[in-house]
């Protein structure tokens, strides 16, 4: 009977140890999670901001490319107009000279 009682007592001690060890491990897990949570906060913030920065750069580069593409259209139009102007001026050069001479001398 005494032996049995001792065995129960011993087993209960083992059980308590098991639970105590589990609680200690749980405490470590929580502590580690707390530290990990801080790192996760930092990393998530950094990732979100980095992603936004990357998109910002993309947005600005796209705007620049769009604008430069539009610019080329403007320049081509101007060059075309320049040719028309030159053709017109060559055609009317004599008329303009005579008209101005007349304006000054008459």
């Amino acid at each position, binding site marked *: 009977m005494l032996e049995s009682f001792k065995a129960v007592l011993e087993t209960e001690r083992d059980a308590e140890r098991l639970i105590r060890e589990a609680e200690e491990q*749980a405490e470590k897990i*929580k502590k580690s999670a707390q530290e990990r*949570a801080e790192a996760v906060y930092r990393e998530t*913030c950094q990732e979100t901001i980095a*992603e936004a920065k990357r998109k*910002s750069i993309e947005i600005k580069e796209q705007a620049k490319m769009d*604008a430069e593409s539009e610019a080329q259209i403007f320049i081509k139009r101007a060059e075309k107009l320049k040719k028309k102007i030159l053709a017109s001026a060559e055609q009317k050069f004599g008329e303009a000279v005579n008209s101005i001479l007349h304006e000054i001398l008459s």
Partner: protein
Amino acid sequence: MEHSGNEILDRILKDAREKAESIIADAKKSAETVIEKQRQTARQNAEEKASALLKRAANDADIIRGKVSTDIKRQAGWIVLSEKNRLITNVLNEVKKRLVNLKKSEDYVPVLEKLIVDAGAVLGGGMLEVVLNENDSTLVKLNTLEKKISDRSSVDTQLKFSEQKIKAVGVIVKTIDDRIFVDNTFEAILSRRERELRLKITRILFSNVG
């Protein structure tokens, strides 16, 4: 009895193990929840900054588009304008050349006389001096011009050649006291009327283009 005793011991240990596992499982679950919550909080907090960054980027993009657009429109305008300006200057240079060459033509003297009369009339007649270049002094008869100036200004007019000579083609007429003068050299006329003449040339040369 012994068998029953072992069962009790096993049961005690089994319960303890289950409780231990449950404690650890709860801790793990709690840890995951904490981490996930922090992740969500971080996203929410960072999202505000990210949103501000993207908004600023959109504004910057508008500014870039606007600036490039303005610059390029200015550049395109400049291409057209500088070409027009070059062509207008070509006309004015040709006019200058022809005016200088006019000296060699028989039309020169009447033109010169007209310039003297115009200048004399602007000065309101009276005692006036005519400043010409060395060669032109012999070409002009002043007495015929005096009457024309008198008629236009309604003031008796006397003209005399100045001892002063100019190098330019054309004439300078000045009051005898040297206080007022009209510069009717071709160079001065062109310079004085350049703005108006450029407009006229523009209308002639480019009326049919944009």
